[in-house]
């Protein structure tokens, strides 16, 4: 290493230390109880004013609540910051990614954090913004088998009192992780919000999933907000996804607003809220669960909900009429036995104004004409593994 390089490295280290010490010296002491006193040293005065104005009955309740955030990227990090500034009791963060310079078109993370794990970098910043919030971090991918058991265990025991978290927020960017959260929350009977921004960055949505009561993520193919862009003119050559800090910030705002409304009991919580950035259109709807949902726990939760006394059923049938998924939905064609077989199927169905299914799935499929694997007998797994190795 040359002398100049050494000096450069030294300057970088010192800058880092300086920044950290500045953060430390600026950090405030913990506050035991939220006060509504309006003085410039009280970080909660404007929040407690919600109580004085009669918007929220007991804002201090937020200090007892625990929220899990899965995915600390463009939406999740902003979500975490908002809840931290609101004085949430505890945040449990999950992500397995590192901060990259390519993330700097989004909010929250800063260039000097590049290379750090997202959960650790986020925890540091959040802790310095509000030391009253307890932050727990988990640096792993929840979709693999081992991590999934850890994930289930964590969200069912990580509240401030050692019980299940009050709410799970999905801020992930892929179908696999969403389906994993769905599986976990159906099994544990936990309420959660799904959130997402489209890969073309000009639409997004949030969806409130109460197992058995509103449609789960497996009840139907993913919902998309129609952005009124001709798919044929959308060029995907050379890139996977685009992103905008605006769309992500708006979706995070929707997500936290509805989280607060649900947790603190004010206003009406949206079951589905979409955002079409091209036209500034915000569709809403309620989606009932699919009685034939693939997820057996979803069906079990539906039966439990149906058995509840009617007064406890918050979602009335009249409310739910809009956008119901019917058993006999004719969901297009598919498959590879006919000549028609592999194509996009017929036009995707609109489920509510401005909201459609990403794709359609047939209820009954015919596979008779194609060869299937032999179901029983035959060679053992070990023999097959050995055979595969020897090819």
């Amino acid at each position, binding site marked *: 290493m040359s002398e100049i390089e050494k000096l450069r490295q030294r300057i970088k280290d010192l800058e880092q230390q300086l920044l950290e010490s500045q953060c430390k010296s600026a950090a405030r002491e913990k506050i035991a109880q939220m006060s509504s006193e309006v003085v410039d040293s009280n970080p909660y005065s404007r929040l407690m004013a919600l109580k004085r104005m009669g918007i929220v009955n007991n804002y201090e309740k937020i200090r007892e609540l625990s929220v899990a955030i899965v995915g600390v990227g463009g939406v999740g990090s902003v979500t975490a910051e908002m809840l931290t500034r609101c004085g949430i009791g505890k945040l449990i963060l999950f992500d397995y990614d590192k901060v990259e310079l390519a993330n700097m078109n989004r909010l929250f993370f800063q260039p000097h954090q590049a290379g750090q794990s997202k959960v650790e970098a986020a925890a540091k910043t959040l802790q310095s913004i509000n030391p009253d919030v307890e932050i727990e971090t988990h640096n792993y991918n929840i979709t693999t088998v081992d991590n999934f058991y850890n994930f289930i265990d964590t969200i069912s025991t990580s509240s401030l009192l050692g019980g299940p978290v009050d709410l799970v927020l999905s801020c992930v960017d892929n*179908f696999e992780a969403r389906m994993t959260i769905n599986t976990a929350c159906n099994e544990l009977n936990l309420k959660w919000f799904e959130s997402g921004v489209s890969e073309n960055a000009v639409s997004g949505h949030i969806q409130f999933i109460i197992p058995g009561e509103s449609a789960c993520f497996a009840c139907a193919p993913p919902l998309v907000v129609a952005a009124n862009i001709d798919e044929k003119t959308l060029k995907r050559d050379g890139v996977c996804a685009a992103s905008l800090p605006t769309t992500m910030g708006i979706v995070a705002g929707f997500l936290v607003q509805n989280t607060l409304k649900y947790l603190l009991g004010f206003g009406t919580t949206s079951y589905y809220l979409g955002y079409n950035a091209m036209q500034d259109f915000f569709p809403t709807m309620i989606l009932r669960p699919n009685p034939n949902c693939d997820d057996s726990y979803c069906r079990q939760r539906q039966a439990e909900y149906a058995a509840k006394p009617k007064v406890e059923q918050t979602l009335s049938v009249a409310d739910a009429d809009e956008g119901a998924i019917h058993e006999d939905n004719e969901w297009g064609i598919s498959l590879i036995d006919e000549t028609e077989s592999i194509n996009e199927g017929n036009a995707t169905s609109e489920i509510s104004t401005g909201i459609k299914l990403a794709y359609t799935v047939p209820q009954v499929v015919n596979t008779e004409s194609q060869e299937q694997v*032999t179901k029983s007998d035959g060679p053992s797994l070990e023999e097959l593994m050995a055979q595969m190795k020897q*090819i």
Partner: protein
Amino acid sequence: MVDESTRKTLSSIPLLQTKAGPRDKDLWVQRLKEEYQALIKYVQNNKSSDNDWFRLESNKEGTKWFGKCWYIHNLLKYEFEIEFDIPVTYPTTAPELALPELDGKTAKMYRGGKICLTDHFKPLWARNVPKFGIAHAMALGLGPWLAVEIPDLIEKGVIAHKEKSAE
């Protein structure tokens, strides 16, 4: 849309029957046997049509898969390591196939070298749960990806041919 040759390849891979994921104990063993049967048939098909292009194997539990795939361009063989985990929600969700050594070399990848799939992959997979398996994911996902991306990466000089001592 899926092109004619992919369609033909897909229809020659045996369909699976058991809907089971890695948490399903005995049923998962049955599913794994079906996965291996379909993969063996697919590789044999490839060999007999002179289009052998990958090998895969898994850990004992069938949850972690690894192997090699290769692509011939101008008579030169370019080889890459493949790896992926079976997600806990499999087969409802497809495995995310990754080529870790190409991570960061192309925009058509997500973190960790997971390949970016075309718009039709997910609908087609969803319509064919649980009949599609790993062999189908390879044929429908990785095969077409290599055919588009590798010549482009070679052209751009991002990847170069490596002499291999052993073939």
